[in-house]
């Protein structure tokens, strides 16, 4: 079993983002997708702290901490970009104006439920940020995560055991082993990487994956 690297995963997600899309890339793994969007494809990156048309990180020494992304890292604004306040920014999400949002996850269920904000641990301090708004806001929600936990358990599950971020909100799952669509009839395998057979993937995942 040969897994995709994090950058290969990001490149695979980037392939599915068409020109003209309004896109929010979540913190962590999804942020890498930005590095793989071809420069000749015009895509509008949204950051929930109030900007559209987000550009790459500034050159060292040119950081402006009044211009940051949702992870509070300094970024740049592309020509044509815009700033706006928080209520407008989340109206873009909640109002269904974003085409695609890419999020990390602890677990995704067969029904497209997402768990990605809280481990539920007794002494873990909860922090939700924009996760719940992002989960339900975009026209399509992509999840990007490793297929298996470090101990080999599937992160695609019948029912999430971690606290939920949103219900039935995930449209597509990108892992280091496969691309899987969430459909009303269950999960459908779109693509398995590096020759992995569907039966073997299904065994690893522990839930049915339709052809």
């Amino acid at each position, binding site marked *: 079993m040969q897994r995709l690297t994090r950058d290969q995963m990001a490149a695979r997600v980037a392939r599915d983002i068409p020109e003209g899309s309004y896109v929010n890339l979540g*913190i*962590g*793994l999804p*942020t*890498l997708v930005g590095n793989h969007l071809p420069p000749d494809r015009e895509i509008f990156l949204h*950051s*929930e*702290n*109030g*900007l559209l048309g987000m550009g790459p990180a500034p050159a060292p020494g040119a*950081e*402006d*901490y*009044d*211009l*940051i992304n949702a*992870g*509070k*890292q*300094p970024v740049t*604004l592309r020509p044509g970009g815009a*700033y*706006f*306040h*928080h*209520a407008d*920014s*989340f*109206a873009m*999400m*909640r109002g269904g104006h974003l085409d695609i949002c890419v999020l*990390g996850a602890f677990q995704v269920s067969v029904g497209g439920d997402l768990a990605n904000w*809280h481990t539920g641990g007794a*002494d873990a*301090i*909860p*922090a*939700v*940020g*924009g*996760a*719940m*708004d992002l989960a*339900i*806001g975009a026209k399509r929600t992509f999840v990007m995560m490793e297929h298996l936990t470090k101990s080999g358990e599937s992160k695609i599950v019948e029912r999430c055991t971690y*606290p*939920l*971020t*949103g*219900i039935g909100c995930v449209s597509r799952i990108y892992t280091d082993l496969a691309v899987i669509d969430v459909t009303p009839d269950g999960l459908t395998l779109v693509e398995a990487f590096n020759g992995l057979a569907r039966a073997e993937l299904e065994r690893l995942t522990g839930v049915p994956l339709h052809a």
Partner: protein
Amino acid sequence: MIDKTVDSTAAALEGVTDGATVMIGGFGGAGQPNELIDALIAHGARDLTIVNNNAGNGETGLAALLKAGRVRKIICSFPRQVDSQVFDGLYRSGRLELELVPQGNLAERIRAAGAGIGGFFTPTGYGTDLAKGKETREIDGRMYVLEAPIHADVALIKAERGDRWGNLVYRKTARNFGPIMAMAARLTVASVHEIVELGELDPESVITPGIFVQRVVRVARTVTGPAGFRQAA
């Protein structure tokens, strides 16, 4: 002549009472009105409820207000950060109440207060722990959660430029919660780096009209530094 400018941050906070609900602008360090927070610490009001996206970074600004023991409760979306040690300690020892709100609900609850809305149904959070016990309703086949407005006694915000009528413009992503918090509080205090003559702000570009602002105070320009910085995983 109407002049909302005041000479000092201390004068800007006159009348803030114990037990007040205080909104503080900013997303991490961007837009955080540090000089006004310092003045609030010096003012001495206690038993405060604070509304902010975060719960303080490092040892300055909001973190310093928490450390001074002035805050009873914080309403925010993202308290836990790499440098939120002051909040973490107070929360774990039970000395600080936390109301955790999804960020978009936080923004809309603040906006609703400012816009005279008595509550609203939002899809965000439906079916999650953060909607437990809240009224839900199906509207056109989708499930929504009823959320209440958040009103404040005081809003402390940071803008870039203002005039004596309280009109404001902001700088880049430091705008964030400023415009909606200005609407939601009975007393809005804006720190600005520059006070300009009436008419100098392009009326087409004013972001917060002066009706939402009661006091304006000039503070020296300081460069916003990194705060709550999280390395990409």
